[in-house]
């Protein structure tokens, strides 16, 4: 399991660059949240107008989203080139219980003591664009601890590390595409995109679909976060409905009495291209159709 050697590996990690480049701050006046919010607002307004003029809704983040300063030199400037997937791209690598131990889905039991913070359960299903469950596939998560600190040397935020929390989990989806993690609610944390920049609390998710074309890495957020309008990464998805798809819902049915609060979040992968056999399409759980 990854957590056993992580702490030592970090101690010996070679020199690493700072979390964000400072160049933007060196050559001009310090950029404030007000500056960034004005940019975010302007892009949002232009998108709203485009939709009003008949443009279809955008479902993905903008690759070119200047308010996230690190994206400026890291986005393709040419249009993505349409390609019909070849057969290898219509399959996904296979993962199974050889790869992931069942206990890796509980991030609160990886050390000798209980981690600090609010214990939560995050659960949901991984589905393809037609609603078919993605069974037996790998889900990976990583996150900051309750005080907003990652166990990563590049995170220099002066908030306490928690010796009982690494913040890494994995699981394999069930026959119905379901996943479930027990963890600690992560804290918000500051970053250096601009002066007084704070990321809303989030959990990083990595998922495989039934096809390599469905590969996704994203971030799950918590409902009602006041930092949403201020965050260039969340706002890089310019469509409100699309942004909302990254926000988990509090679910009292999922809450475990006297133990942990429950959050539900389903992941919908991009549509599949493959012609499915009946067994693959309906999985073990069957289907009403």
């Amino acid at each position, binding site marked *: 399991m990854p957590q056993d050697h992580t702490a030592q590996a970090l101690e010996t990690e*070679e*020199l690493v660059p700072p979390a964000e480049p400072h160049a933007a701050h060196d050559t001009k006046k310090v950029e404030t949240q007000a500056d960034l919010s004005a940019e975010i607002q302007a892009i949002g307004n232009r998108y709203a107008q485009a939709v009003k003029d008949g443009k279809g809704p955008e479902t993905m983040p903008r690759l070119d989203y200047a308010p996230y300063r690190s994206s400026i030199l890291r986005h393709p400037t040419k249009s993505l080139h349409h390609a019909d997937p070849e057969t*290898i791209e219509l399959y996904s690598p296979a993962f199974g219980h050889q790869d992931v131990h069942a206990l890796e889905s509980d991030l609160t039991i990886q050390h000798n003591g209980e981690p600090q913070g609010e214990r939560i359960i995050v659960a949901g299903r991984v589905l393809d664009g037609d609603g078919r469950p993605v069974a037996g596939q790998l889900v990976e998560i990583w996150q900051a601890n309750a005080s907003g600190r990652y166990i990563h040397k590049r995170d220099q935020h002066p908030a306490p590390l928690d010796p009982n929390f690494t913040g890494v989990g994995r699981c394999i989806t069930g026959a119905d595409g379901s996943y479930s993690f027990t963890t600690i609610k992560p804290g918000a944390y500051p970053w250096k995109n601009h002066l007084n920049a704070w990321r809303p609390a989030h959990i990083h998710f990595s998922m495989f679909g039934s096809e390599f074309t469905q590969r996704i*890495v994203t971030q799950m957020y918590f409902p009602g976060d006041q930092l949403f309008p201020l965050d260039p990464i969340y706002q890089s998805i*310019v469509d409100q409905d699309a942004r909302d798809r990254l926000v988990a819902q509090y679910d009292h049915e999922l809450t475990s009495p006297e133990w942990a609060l429950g959050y539900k979040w389903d992941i919908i992968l991009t549509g599949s291209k493959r012609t499915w056999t009946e067994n693959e399409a309906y999985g073990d759980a069957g289907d009403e159709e």
Partner: protein
Amino acid sequence: MSKLAPTPGQTVGPFYGYALPFNMDNELLAPGSPGSIRLQGTVYDGAGNTIPDAILEIWQPDSEGNIVQRTGSLVRDGYTFTGWGRGAVGNSGVYTFTTVNPGPLKAGAAPFISVAVFARGLMNRLFTRVYLPENEEALANDPLLSSLDPERRKTLIARRDPDGGLTWDIRLQGGDETVFLDFQQDGSLDLASGDQATP
């Protein structure tokens, strides 16, 4: 069946390093074992600087062109070829994989390795392919390569190293920007042009 709206991607961020890498993640087979080759390259940004915080995944058929559906990528036994690997770049932006030359998916097809690119500052993963440089005829007939002009086409073809390995660099932006792929063609991914007026 009605299509459900897809969940948006987000950047992998700067802190994946203690979570996504795992032991032998970039060794699809053991270095030095028969048939093994090194695939390596450097990831660059639009200013030509190397990117020290990118992570790649490769997915490929075996040397016969068979698509492998075997588990065990995360806990490698040193013998099972799973076809999938993950490799974070080092501080100088260089990645390496140990793998095999992929075989053609069908007779006469140009063999390639499928690649997903993740990086801090990259809002969503990018897909691309790296083709083996041999067999000009197969390359000329490849549906993707033949749809590209020569300057762009060459960004998808690896160089063969003297030791039998492959070198292939990735440029996220610029004149010699790598060709990145959209498999969906539903309009939702046509976002590279960013915040511009409706075409």
